């Protein structure tokens, strides 16, 4: 066992957890492929990617925030606000909707960065407040109802269209994850984020620009949430001021399932993607169970099973970590 771990270059318990999530994802895909005829069909794969890319985007932003030792509860609210603003701007040009939505997310991120760094308020409280403010703004702008998008400006292509046979949201997600990987693994700021998450005071003493890095991280998370909001509006044909409730917790769960500790200082872009896909895959498989009538699973059972699944993953991770710690 230990020889195997060495061969795979698994140095830390975090690496083990990350390997675990990738294996679990592969296992789940295998299970689905063996059990359902249409599981690996082009239709299922493409619609899976189309629908889940927005959650994956939010999970990526959340992973970066958590790596610095913070948390971003405002992502769902930012996405809702962005979806409304994108819908309102969509009649003018598809790009107006797209960039308007991203700008809305950036605005929430900037506010988060300001409150966390300049006012020195804990990220949990800071982003809780901006989440409320974002929902409030979304409801005000939308007049308490959903806002239809324009179908003439090409805006709906962003969420519903294809490019080279792949859904555009999947392309956006892929590009975001490649960029995220480059930032974390190849740019100095990636190393800085991990250093800040490992110990903010030490990082500051080492001369790292802590504030600037933290602001960048919250801006990134906000922009990705804004992008998710644009995709949401485009996919459903309407800006949804009350959508996004609970997205932050789904994103946090994805990051944790991906082996990133909430205490910060470590993390992986690839494993975050695997974590988000894993949680989404559970849902996909439950839908198959539903559709084929093997057991009649109501939507209510699905959240019970999702919670149970999260429980199994975090308990297994906790056991893995404690065992490695005892040995070390």
């Amino acid at each position: 066992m230990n020889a195997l771990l060495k061969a795979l270059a698994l140095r830390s318990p975090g690496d083990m957890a990350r390997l675990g999530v990738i294996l679990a994802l592969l296992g789940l895909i295998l299970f689905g492929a063996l059990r359902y005829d249409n599981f690996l069909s082009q239709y299922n794969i493409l619609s899976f990617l189309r629908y889940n890319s927005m959650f994956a985007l939010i999970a990526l932003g959340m992973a970066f925030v958590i790596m610095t030792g913070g948390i971003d509860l405002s992502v769902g609210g930012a996405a809702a606000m962005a979806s409304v603003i994108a819908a309102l701007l969509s009649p003018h040009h598809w790009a107006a909707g797209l960039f308007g939505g991203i700008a809305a997310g950036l605005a929430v991120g900037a506010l988060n960065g300001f409150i966390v760094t300049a006012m020195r308020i804990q990220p949990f409280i800071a982003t809780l407040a901006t989440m409320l403010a974002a929902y409030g703004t979304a409801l005000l702008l939308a007049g308490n109802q959903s806002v239809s998008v324009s179908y003439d400006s090409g805006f709906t292509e962003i969420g519903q269209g294809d490019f080279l046979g792949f859904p555009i949201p999947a392309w956006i997600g892929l590009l975001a994850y490649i960029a995220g990987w480059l930032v974390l693994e190849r740019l100095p700021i990636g190393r800085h984020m991990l250093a800040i998450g490992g110990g903010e005071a030490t990082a500051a003493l080492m001369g790292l620009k802590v504030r600037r890095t933290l602001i960048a991280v919250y801006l990134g998370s906000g922009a990705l949430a804004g992008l998710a909001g644009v995709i949401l509006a485009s996919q459903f044909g309407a800006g949804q001021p009350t959508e996004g409730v609970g997205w932050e917790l789904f994103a946090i769960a994805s990051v944790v399932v991906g082996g990133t500790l909430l205490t910060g200082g470590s993390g992986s872009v690839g494993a975050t993607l695997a974590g988000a896909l894993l949680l989404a895959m559970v849902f996909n498989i439950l839908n198959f169970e539903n559709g084929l009538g093997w057991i009649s699973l109501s939507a209510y059972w699905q959240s019970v099973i999702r919670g149970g699944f999260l429980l199994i993953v975090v308990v297994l991770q906790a056991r893995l970590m404690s065992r490695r710690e005892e040995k070390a």
Partner: protein
Amino acid sequence: MTTIETQAGANTVPSGKRFFSLAGRYGTFAAFLALILFNVVFTPNSLSLQTLNVNLTQVATIVIVAIGMTLVIATGGIDLSVGSLMAIAGALAPMIFMGTLFPIANMPVAVALALVMPVAVTGLLGLFNGFLVTRFAIQPIIATLVLFIAGRGIAQVMTNGNLQVFRNEGFQFIAMGRVAGIPAQVILMAVIAAIAWAAIRYTVFGRQIIAVGGNEKAARLTGIPVHRVKLFVYMISGALAGVAGLIVVARNSASDANLVGLGMELDAIAAVAVGGTLLTGGRANIIGTVIGALVIQLVRYTLLANGVPDAAALIVKAALIVLAVFIQQRAGKS
């Protein structure tokens, strides 16, 4: 305000930092008084007994949940599952006195069971949260996220997602009843707050809660049963969420598993933060939490009574939370 912590050097601060120190200690209370004054002057009918009752009954459930949250946060944890636990208790209670769970011939017994059993169940679920936090050392936000996600599903599965409508005066006394003209839920809120305040201030257990949140390692080394303390606070938080769930469904004469307690975890956390308990633990300001919840409620009432839409009230609430925490932190530093 009763804040249990060392206030070393609080009297020797330079005058420039005095403002934040004072504002930190009395700011929330001052905001509370200012809001009342504002309403007396500008809001019509704000001095009526009915206004008082409306505000107190609306805030009762938040206060009850927020007190449990205060204890959990004092140990350095957090409880995201409270809203879902409210839904479970709210779903369970009508099933008991309406006999859908098991037949009970004697109505008073059924009502008593409907009041006790759901609270016991949510207390046990709280214990489960504590078990994950202590036994597996899972971070509280993730440990309680499990029941946040699964809990509402459990409530929905129990009721098949259906609305349960009922009339039962015995059970609904917990929300609709009055003792000497005071709504029963307000009395319940006051009693729970008083017990929690006294427990923090005068009991060994209260001190242990603060000690665990202040420095867990030190607490363990001085022989405090850290795990038992944590299990206890999560159990209390779960049980209080159950009580709040009973009040909500009794008030509505209906139980909707999709809606009971939705977003309550955030309201409770906000009340705790505005009330001056830092999320890092080691402090438990029960009176602060009560006033924090009252301030948030009063802001909402003031805005609504003066024609400001609910959506704008959300933004004001957000600004208020940030401002309150900012002032308290500055006070803490000086």
